[in-house]
């Protein structure tokens, strides 16, 4: 640990503190605290959206996964940019902003609740966020605390406490303005860090084509276990229908690529700008940002194989002794100049803090604005809105910190594995539970209150069932399936004491993401129930910009 690293980290924390203070000074009303008064600059909005979306796990975890799977992961980057930015801002963003303004909604659950005139939906959506988001936040928090422990040599508990406390102060005091101002700084640091990483990597390996060719030439070095799973080299897609193909395409590419559209902490960003023009101006910022984040992480992750093969005669996963998350840090330590370690340290700190601050904020608004303030006692009281939400944020932070600190202590290795699946669980659940009714809220006159509620329950219920009992990554970690049925997934049968994956043609059920089951079911239930239940009045639909002449 160098004096430079300590100096830069201290300067960075002071800069974050200053921007958090600026956010606090600019926050006068509940609307400021929740949606930044709907007047955010497009650069700040787009960088905040991007840096919230990209956490340390996207860079280190998914970068390491690219070291195993190869550059086929770039399909996720295509979806991240096209769906996660272009479709999100241009198609969903404008409608969400306009509807939020018309219904005077300040949070994602409030938008859904008012559009479908259902306090139940507002409360249920907020409950789902508040119950499952701490798991996602813990996954990010643990990653950041472990990284700080490695880099600065401080104990894990101290790193966890200090890191959480710094974020807590500026989120609780500064609200969404504090979050977005700091996000913009953090996103800018991340952009510089990742640009430097791709330039240094390509130049070290002899240029773009030479680096790719060297990686292609390593196809014969694929470990036997991966080759059996369908791995065909790091510059090729896995064999169609193989377990690796299903994991890559269904979980990583589709699960995360589509799941992003229904993330409440991202959807609320559309409501923070003044008009569609600001959203259009945010599109190029977001598109380039995501290209430089996941695009660079996946390319560099795959190319680490060339570096490790040249220096140690091994591919990345072997050099990292099987630890996927160690691939990127090991590569940086060995292959990058010493000045880069300081920049990358700040990049990862920024990635973690920008994601966590938004998670804490949305947990707090769910508990404060959508649940506590909707209770009969507080519903008609005047004022106190910001205080209730601030208390909600504090509770959300404490729950996440407890999970990060206590889950491993209480459940040992199982606790760690549950948290590690936190991101995938939250993304899958949000897509299945929220996406059909969210899209229906923006575009459809035909979706009824009963249809939205039924679709929400079907999506949440079916994806939870699939996560707990079928999708082997989660069902193995959660242990419940094993306790009840004696197998770690219902997609696995025991034949003569050996595990056999159940198939239907090319489909291997244990590898099919919950999104492929929960989302179609939720859409079907939403439409079916809406066909037979009472429609909204023309007056309400007009108010929601869905009138016959709108």
């Amino acid at each position, binding site marked *: 640990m160098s004096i430079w690293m300590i100096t830069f980290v201290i300067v960075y924390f002071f800069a974050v503190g200053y921007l958090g203070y600026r956010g606090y000074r600019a926050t006068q009303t509940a609307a400021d605290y929740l949606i930044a008064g709907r007047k955010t600059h497009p650069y700040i909005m787009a960088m905040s959206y991007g840096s919230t979306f990209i956490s340390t796990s996207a860079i280190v975890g998914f970068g390491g996964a690219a070291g195993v799977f190869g550059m086929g992961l770039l399909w996720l980057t295509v979806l991240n*940019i096209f769906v996660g930015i272009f479709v999100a801002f241009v198609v969903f963003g404008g409608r969400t902003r306009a509807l939020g303004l018309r219904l005077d909604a300040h949070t994602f659950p409030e938008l859904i609740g008012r559009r479908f005139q259902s306090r139940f939906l507002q409360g249920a959506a907020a409950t789902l966020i508040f119950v499952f988001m701490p798991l996602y936040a813990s996954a990010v928090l643990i990653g950041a605390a472990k990284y700080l422990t490695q880099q600065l040599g401080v104990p894990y508990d101290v790193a966890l406490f200090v890191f959480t406390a710094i974020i807590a102060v500026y989120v609780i005091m500064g609200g969404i303005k504090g979050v977005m101002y700091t996000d913009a700084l953090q996103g800018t640091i991340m952009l510089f860090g990742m640009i430097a990483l791709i330039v240094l990597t390509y130049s070290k390996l002899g240029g773009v084509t030479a680096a790719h060719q060297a990686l292609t030439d390593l196809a014969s070095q694929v470990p036997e276990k991966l080759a059996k799973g369908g791995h*065909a080299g790091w510059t090729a897609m896995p064999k169609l229908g193989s377990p690796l193909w299903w994991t890559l395409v269904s979980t990583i590419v589709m699960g995360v690529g589509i799941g992003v559209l229904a993330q409440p902490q991202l959807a609320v960003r559309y409501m923070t700008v003044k008009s569609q023009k600001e959203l259009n101006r*945010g599109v190029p910022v977001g598109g380039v940002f995501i290209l430089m984040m996941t695009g660079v992480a996946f390319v560099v992750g795959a190319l680490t194989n060339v570096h490790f093969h040249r220096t140690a005669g091994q591919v990345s996963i072997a050099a990292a002794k099987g630890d996927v998350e160690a691939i990127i840090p090991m590569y940086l330590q060995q292959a990058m100049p010493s000045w880069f370690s300081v920049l990358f340290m700040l990049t990862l700190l920024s990635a973690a803090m920008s994601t966590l601050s938004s998670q804490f904020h949305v947990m707090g608004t769910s508990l404060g604005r959508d649940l506590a303030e909707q209770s009969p006692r507080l519903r008609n009281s005047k004022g106190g809105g910001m205080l209730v939400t601030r208390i909600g944020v504090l509770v959300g932070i404490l729950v996440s910190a407890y999970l990060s600190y206590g889950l491993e202590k209480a459940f040992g290795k199982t606790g760690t594995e549950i948290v590690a699946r936190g991101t995938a669980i939250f993304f899958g659940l949000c897509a299945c539970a929220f996406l059909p009714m969210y899209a229906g809220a923006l575009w459809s006159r035909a979706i009824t209150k009963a249809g939205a509620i039924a679709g929400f329950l079907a999506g949440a219920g079916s994806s939870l069932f699939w996560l707990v009992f079928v999708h082997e990554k989660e069902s193995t970690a959660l242990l419940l399936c094993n306790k009840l049925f004696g197998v770690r997934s219902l997609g696995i049968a025991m034949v003569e004491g050996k595990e056999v994956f159940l198939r239907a043609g090319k489909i291997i059920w244990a590898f099919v993401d919950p999104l492929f089951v929960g989302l179609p079911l939720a859409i079907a239930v939403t439409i079916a129930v809406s066909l037979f239940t009472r429609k909204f009045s023309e007056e309400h639909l007009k108010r929601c910009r869905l009138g016959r002449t709108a």
Partner: protein
Amino acid sequence: MMGLADPWVFVAYLLCILSALLCVGWGAYFWNREEEEVRQWAVEEDK
């Protein structure tokens, strides 16, 4: 192509760059191309 073995990976690599360029083009084209009434209406109705 570009040293990549599988055309599908090459297409993904290309689409990443093209998607980002689409975003840049969209922003450039629309850079300079209903609020208070709506907000007031919403607040009144909510009251």
